[in-house]
């Protein structure tokens, strides 16, 4: 058993608009059916721009949101219902905004104790020991335990968030933009800590971010999300170096890089398609320089290309 997490056709749509009697008028597909698997000990990066469905996907994976269809298998066990408490022992979440993920009116100790008490029914003495152990592993001093969240900087608060996730003894962590609220000098500290923890506790990560460089630096494989679908999936060192999907190429070319002259890779029309009225074919066709009639009428599936990669495109770019 080497697969930590396996998603089969996982999809989510949200009802929109309210009729006179409260019935929904339509549905927005936030996540189109996604099939993915994450190997044990692997870091899978998920990258995409705002509105691509990456947070919705993440919330389904921890049971905070019920999928519309599809299944989630964690360490070989299927999780049918969206019950965060059931998920919580296997998979945990590290939030984007470190401060607002900590209840302002609880001490850090109370926050840390909750998962130990509720998920593992640990007695008081054992809890104390375990918290000390975890705090040590995330380089936080034990004296912080009796303070309140507002006394911490963003970087420290994020370490506390990570410590809480570890306390649940989950083997898989969903990291939802864990460093995007932090300054670069602190960002590197947290990323390195995450790398150390992964090695020390044999963790599996799903690292979600909009920052291509950060994702590339921490991931083994990267999935590129566009408009709710995975458009490309491949080894981290190849995805942005030799993009196969035109959208990945656009992302890679847009990232500002020292030493590369400024050039708008695209003239106009960067808007995402209207989610209420999605295009019949490939969602990227409207922006794609290589789009053909087929692209505009048929949805491409994620197909293997080359040795390790997969791409959802009828006209993939040459390697």
């Amino acid at each position, binding site marked *: 058993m080497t697969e930590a997490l396996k998603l089969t056709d996982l999809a989510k749509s949200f009802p929109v608009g309210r009729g006179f009697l409260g019935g929904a008028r339509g549905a927005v597909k936030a996540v189109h059916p996604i099939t993915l698997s994450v190997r044990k000990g692997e870091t899978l990066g998920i990258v995409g*721009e705002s509105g691509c469905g990456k947070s919705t996907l993440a*919330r389904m994976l921890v*049971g*905070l949101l019920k999928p519309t269809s599809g299944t989630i298998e964690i360490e070989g066990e299927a999780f049918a219902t969206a019950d965060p*408490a059931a*998920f*919580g*022992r296997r998979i945990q*979440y590290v*939030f*984007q905004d470190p401060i*607002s*993920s*900590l*209840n302002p*009116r*609880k001490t850090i100790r109370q*926050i840390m104790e*909750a*998962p130990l008490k*509720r*998920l593992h029914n640990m007695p008081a003495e054992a809890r104390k020991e375990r918290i000390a152990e975890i705090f040590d592993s995330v380089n936080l001093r034990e004296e912080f335990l009796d303070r309140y969240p507002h006394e911490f900087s963003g970087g420290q608060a994020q370490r506390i*968030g990570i410590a809480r996730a570890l306390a*649940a003894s989950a083997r898989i962590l969903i990291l939802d933009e864990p460093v995007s609220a932090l*300054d*670069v*000098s602190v960002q*590197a500290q947290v990323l*390195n800590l995450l*790398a150390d923890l992964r090695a020390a506790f044999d963790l599996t990560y799903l690292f979600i971010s*909009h920052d*291509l*460089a950060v994702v*590339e*630096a921490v*991931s*083994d494989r990267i999935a590129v999300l566009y408009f709710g679908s995975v458009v490309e999936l491949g080894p*981290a060192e190849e995805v*942005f*170096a030799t993009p196969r999907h035109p959208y990945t190429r*656009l*992302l*890679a*070319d*847009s*990232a*500002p*890089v*020292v*030493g*590369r*002259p*400024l*050039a*708008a*890779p*695209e003239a*106009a*029309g*960067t808007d995402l398609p209207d989610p209420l009225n999605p295009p019949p074919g490939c969602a990227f066709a409207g922006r794609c320089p290589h789009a053909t009639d087929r692209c505009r009428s048929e949805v491409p599936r994620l197909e293997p290309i080359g040795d390790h990669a997969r791409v959802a495109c009828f006209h993939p770019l040459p390697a």
Partner: protein
Amino acid sequence: MTGFFQLLARNRLALAGGVVLSLVILLALVTPLLPLADPDVTDTANRFKLPFSEGALLGTDHLGRDLLSRLLWGTRLSLAVGFAAAIVAATIGSAIGIVAGFYGGRTDNLIMRGVDMLMAFPYILLALAIVAALGPGLFNALIAVAAVNVPFFARNIRGITVGIAHKEFVDAARLAGLSNTRIIVSEVLPNVIPVIVIAMSTTIGWMILETAGLSFLGLGSQPPQADLGSMLGEARSALITNPHTSIVPGLMILVIVMSINLLGDGVRDALDPRLKSGALSRPMAATRVDRKGPLPAPTGAGLLEVQGLQTQFHIKDRVYRAVGGVDLHVAKGECLGIIGESGSGKSVTALSVMGLVASPPGVITGGAAHYEGEDLIGAPYRRLRGMRGRNVAYIFQDPLATLHPLYRVGDQLIEAIRAHRPIGREEGRRKAVELLTAVRIPNPEKRIANYPHEMSGGMRQRVGIAMALANDPDIIIADEPTTALDVTVQAQVLTILDDLRRSRGLAIIFITHDFGVVAQLCDRVAVMYAGRIVEEGRTADILGAPRHPYTARLMACVPEVGGGKRRLEAIAGLPPVVDRLPEGCAFAERCLKAQEACRRDEIPLVRDGASAVRCLYPNDPSREAAE
């Protein structure tokens, strides 16, 4: 909790209200012990005695009853009923609000529909209907007043609960295995209680008024028992002949309600976290300037020259030195980048130039900003206003927050022009279309009629740029204009800015935290740390061979696309807080090369040709290159 009482005690009006209220409550509590006449014994022979007469300190009423005694007993009753109504309404209303807000969906819908219906009545109609059904009487009046206030609490608390239920810490609690009930008790309730207390403290006075009102109408307390309202009601028929019988209970109500309101405001201010930071102050039209010491004379470098700029934030007794002496200049057609982490003072520097730092709490305490030889910092407001947008224009970070949500973008563009010269409707419209075309917005004729919320982030930021261009300024100060945008959109916006600079010869000051953006856009760059420039020079030089250890280390922290999976360099520790800056170099604490001397004295910015660095032991570019 002690902090709360300290804050409350600092508010003198609230304190006064608290003292008066405590006295009244104390008086009401000891009333049965005082040697007072029986409040209900009539003595028609001694009716309408004036205040300060023998045996009746406040006089007597139309039945000859002692007014002082009736006043104290009435106060006791009014207070009891008012507080009871408030507690009942707050408890029931808050419980309903929390349940509706937390569970959401159908539960919420059903409950709130009911609440809406109750609120569809002018409240007194509901109270009157209840009293009509139950019959007049003080207890029924209490029920009526509590009942009409339940919806107010329910709606108020529901709104707060919805906000809290969507907070990330509630999700975290779910993942920690907490049940819904437990989440309500341990996560939601502690965050809602301050709001309930605020709502109660601000409505309790009103509830006392309402119960008094019902009694005044004869629907509350029934004779001979009297609360303050029924005393007034009974005295009304003798208002003209014997006004003291009305004035005595009336003033008492006024005193009670006023002291409750004063105290309530104090409680609100002490519990509202936004007020603690002094954030609810209105920023003035221009930043306060309080410069001490001699003003630097212009040297004529560049179009805009900032010299020794110091901007501070005065919050309570603390002084945050956000900008601690910044020198920079920008020439026509040049793009100067200012780069730094959050809190480095880069935005405050930029906003200080045109007096746009929010004040209070911001104060410019030193330095000058010379534009064509004229000092902008010292300029009177009228002069400054005339130059804002016309000579120096700004582009801000979040285009959704920085455009007025209720005006069409075309009108906002025209207003920018109109602020500086009169312009007709037709010409304004034409000019607005022209501006939108200049920033490559497709369909500009249609787009001018859009509201900001109808546009995407990238389009809104283009409108922001168009607005900055409206009066053909010489200088544009762009404060992180692409930070809130996606990378593909950012690339477009940067291209537009770069093209405009070249075609119009604009000087741009570009504030960012992104080295990649600086590299692509800026000719020169200044690196800021803890309110000072630590290094400045040509972009290529600095990015190629940074001399200040901070610049070098910061650049090493930033991952770049194409590097593959790797361990990143990190800078241990945190930037210093600017109200407690260390002596000497602010970076010494985190610097690997720091020596004793670094922590001792002020370290000057040493200029060497085109570049400058504020370091005693800078990296040597030639040696680094050799290595």
